């Protein structure tokens, strides 16, 4: 792919590539914007930029991730995602074949999630000014009446659930990037969670909190929720699902899987009496098969997230300022 004088033809090609892959009635109108009708009620909107290395990883790539990430951010409001827009910044020299792979994967992800990419933009930057490709997606969705999960609604006594194993995406990325040569390939969990969320809010419309523990992992996300809600949390390490291969990789790398990113998992917090119903609804969905109750919300002026360890101790699962720095002197 080239930029500059020959760029015009290339841009044309690229547009055609996108148009073919994402084809939908709104995009097909060929306008600089998409116009559509929406039902009345509460609308949510979110945007996210995607930068990932490597661009292709076991279980996904930057294209599917750009769809899943934004769909999930919409879904975590309890909403049904409607449409996405996508912006691409492509580095000069990025192989067209790779671009086609990314775009096709994106289109497939959108189709699977039941959302349309209704508008887009493409820019090509000089070689060295990008890292292959960056994607920004924006999404909107509608929230069903009576549904209002929010990070500030965790209450003492609530149950804390996760939809499946923790740390898969972060560890998959790391092991691929660094070619650590694990015998079993670890797959990213990248997935669109709107279907799971729809089943969950149908079962328990009053669910208090939904959040996807992406960057910073479960630990960071729970700390955010604890601070937003002004509560503490008590987790049981033994109840937190972590795949054996992820645990082994983390042991090697000296990382804590609770701080590793997830791209297809969610945290749900609900009233204790609704926990069983919610858990059943989650487990009935393919993306929530391994859902588990991992702890409870407690009163705590310090907003500490504490964990009962496997060895019977208790430790604070804190938020970290940066990467996992050593602490043992």
């Amino acid at each position, binding site marked *: 792919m080239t930029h500059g004088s020959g760029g015009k033809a290339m841009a044309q090609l690229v547009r055609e590539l996108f148009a073919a892959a994402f084809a939908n009635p709104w995009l097909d109108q060929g306008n600089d914007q998409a116009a559509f009708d929406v039902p009345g009620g509460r609308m949510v909107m979110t945007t996210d930029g995607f930068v990932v290395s490597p661009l292709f990883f076991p279980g996904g790539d930057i294209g599917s991730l750009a769809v899943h990430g934004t769909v999930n951010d919409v879904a975590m409001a309890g909403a049904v995602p409607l449409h996405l827009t996508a912006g691409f910044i492509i580095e000069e020299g990025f192989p067209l074949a790779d671009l086609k792979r990314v775009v096709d994967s994106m289109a497939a992800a959108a189709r699977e999630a039941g959302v349309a990419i209704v508008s887009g933009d493409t820019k090509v930057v000089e070689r060295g000014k990008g890292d292959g490709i960056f994607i920004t997606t924006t999404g909107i969705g509608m929230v069903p009446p009576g549904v209002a999960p929010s990070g500030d609604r965790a209450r003492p006594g609530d149950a804390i659930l996760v939809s499946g194993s923790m740390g898969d995406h972060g560890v998959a990325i790391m092991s691929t990037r660094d070619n*650590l*040569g694990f015998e079993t390939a670890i797959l990213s969990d990248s997935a669109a969670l709107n279907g799971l969320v729809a089943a969950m809010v149908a079962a328990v419309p009053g669910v208090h909190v939904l959040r996807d523990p992406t960057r910073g992992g479960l630990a960071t996300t729970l700390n955010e929720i604890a601070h937003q809600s002004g509560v503490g949390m008590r987790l049981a390490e033994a109840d937190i699902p972590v795949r054996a291969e992820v645990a082994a990789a983390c042991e090697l790398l000296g990382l804590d899987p609770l701080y590793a990113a997830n791209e297809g998992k969610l945290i749900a917090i609900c009233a204790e009496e609704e926990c069983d119903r919610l858990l059943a609804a989650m487990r009935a969905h393919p993306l929530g098969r391994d859902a588990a109750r991992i702890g409870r919300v407690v009163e705590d002026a*310090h907003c500490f997230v504490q964990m009962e360890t496997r060895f019977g*101790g208790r430790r*604070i699962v804190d938020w970290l*300022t940066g990467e996992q720095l050593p602490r*043992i*002197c």
Partner: protein
Amino acid sequence: MGDDMVRLRIRVRGRVQGVGFRPHVHGLARRLGLTGWVLNDPQGVLIEVQGIATTAFLAALTGEAPPLARIDAVEPEAVDADPAEVGFAIRHSEATGAVATGIGPDATVCPACLAELFDPADRRYRYAFLNCTHCGPRYTITRRLPYDRPQTAMAGFPLCPDCRAEYEDPADRRFHAQPVACPACGPRLSHPPEIILAALRGGLIVAIKGLGGFHLACDATRADAVERLRRVKQRNGKPFALMVANTPSAERHVRIDEDERALLEGVARPIVLLRRRPDGPALAPDIAPGLAWLGVMLPYTPLHYLLFHEAAGRPDATGWLGVPQELTLVMTSANPGGEPLAIGNAEARQRLAGIADLIVDHDRDIVVRADDSVVRKLGGAPAFLRRGRGHVPEPIRLARPVPPILAVGGHLKATICVTRGDEAFLSQHLGDLDNASTLGFLEETVEHLLHVLGVAPAAVAHDLHPDFHSTRFAERTGLPAVPVQHHHAHVAAVMAEHRVDGPALGLALDGFGLGEGGGSWGGEMLLVEGALAERLGHLAPLAQPGGDVAARQPWRMAAAALVRMGRAEEIVPRFGGHGPAEGVRRMIERGINAPLTSSCGRWFDAACGLLGIRSLAGFEGEAPMALESLVRRPQVAAGAWRIDGTQLDLTPLLERLLSARDASEGAELFHGTLAAALLDWTLPQLRARGLRRVVLSGGCMMNAVLAETLAAGFQDAGIDALLPRLAPANDGGLSLGQAWAASFAL
């Protein structure tokens, strides 16, 4: 003054309350025919004496001070005489004004009380709570100042007429002894000594309430009991301390020199690390696996004594205390899960239920938690490895008065420190700040220490590490915060206690501390002057594959060293049995979560890994302790180091270890050569700056072989080497150094 009638008002400062100082003054005045009065006030003791022997009085005031008193200042001034005065009075405490006097640390049972304890005719015969002004609990039972019974855990025990008479008689050893008690009016034990002893002898684990918390005790000769204690406490390999009746009993197991005897028998009764005799009587193998030292302490509460008395067959009088006794107990802090010591009875029942077979408690509350202190002889003098019971809240005197500062220490082995004038009050060992209970203990301790000292801090000093809970606590205080780099604080702590007020060259030989700019430091040569620390040099960097994991898996550091030697292909054959060796090799070679560290502790780990000593450690520091244990005489591998500019590279030494005859030779080569290399690296820097003094600090300075070899080497070169003594060399001393360094920034 001559023979004239003189009236003096005398201010006495120091630890002069609750130690029998007023009766001492009273007795002295009567003996010398002086009139006047004495009282306790928030600044200490105030005396007025009148008569002709006031000079003799001043001399005897300090010369004959009671055993637990510490006199910091005696300030006499002449005042107008009162010709009408008769007699000498002890006046009541004045509870107003700024509190400046200290509460004393807890002290072991004094000889006079021991005599009563084993005298069948005494009304306190076998009474587990006897004490007097010269002994017994202090800091751990005191809620607030001034130190008076209603402010202590004894508030709920009204004195019986007999105890009251003693308490009020200025001539009595128990005059104003706040915790005074007897079987008629004092606290009671839940189980008699015979039951406790029977349980111990039966191989049971017994939780015993002591001064600063509960201990878990068992018979040290019963392998089954010790093994079970280790299992239930989840204490992988960490050595257990022993309690024996007296020094002759200890000498069956360990060698003790005169200094060590003084430490062991001192009123503070710390755990003393002593070299084990190979020919000693058999003990359970699990007590201190693979270590050449045993931690030993002597009894310090009447209950401890009663257990040994029971075991000795309840002899009358104290003669039995001079001869060796069989009973040897393991006594370890009851702090399950690494959380702070259990102190409350209900708390103990709940937390120790699954651990102890029998819980021995009593109805005197522990107000302040305090672990046993741990000391060892290092370079010819004692040094603290852990500072706690018996020593808090003893102040450390500084070179000059500083603004009031609260320093909150590091992350592991946390302590806090509060300054007041030229005194620094280092708290007791608090534990590792990775759990909310220990953090709560820290917050509690800050509040209590500031209260009992009457200090309102002007600033809070903390480590540079953003993810230490101590750092976050400091931020929450809202006080002006002064960050102090970890190794600057290590060096400053030693400067503080040795009252070094000028520039000093410091070696911080440590595990890990965040450096300026985010680096991983730990083998640093720093030029420290006040608020500034210039990094003159450091040990050559080693990759630390996996960060903290490598601090518990010395084989990883050995792998990093092999990569440095260009022998990466040996990693898998050597360490394939210990874990994912190939993965670790890749992490090191590609720099994946393998931060470079200049840590001396990690070079130690690398040596241990290469020599096959504790390739997988149960706790941090285990491998280097085992390495040190193997040394009989340090040896130097001549020239097995490189000095590249400001860096000291020990790679040639590690290469040499690969051809060591055995682990012992390797250990001796490592210690001797490391010391020689450090000297070779440091001496030119000292000479270039005209400095005659070096400060040695950091966790590696707990290693007696290294500390002694290094200190002796500097001494031979005409350089004064200052070692950490009053504050632990490890992170337990950080808060003192933070406070001292921060004082220059205010």
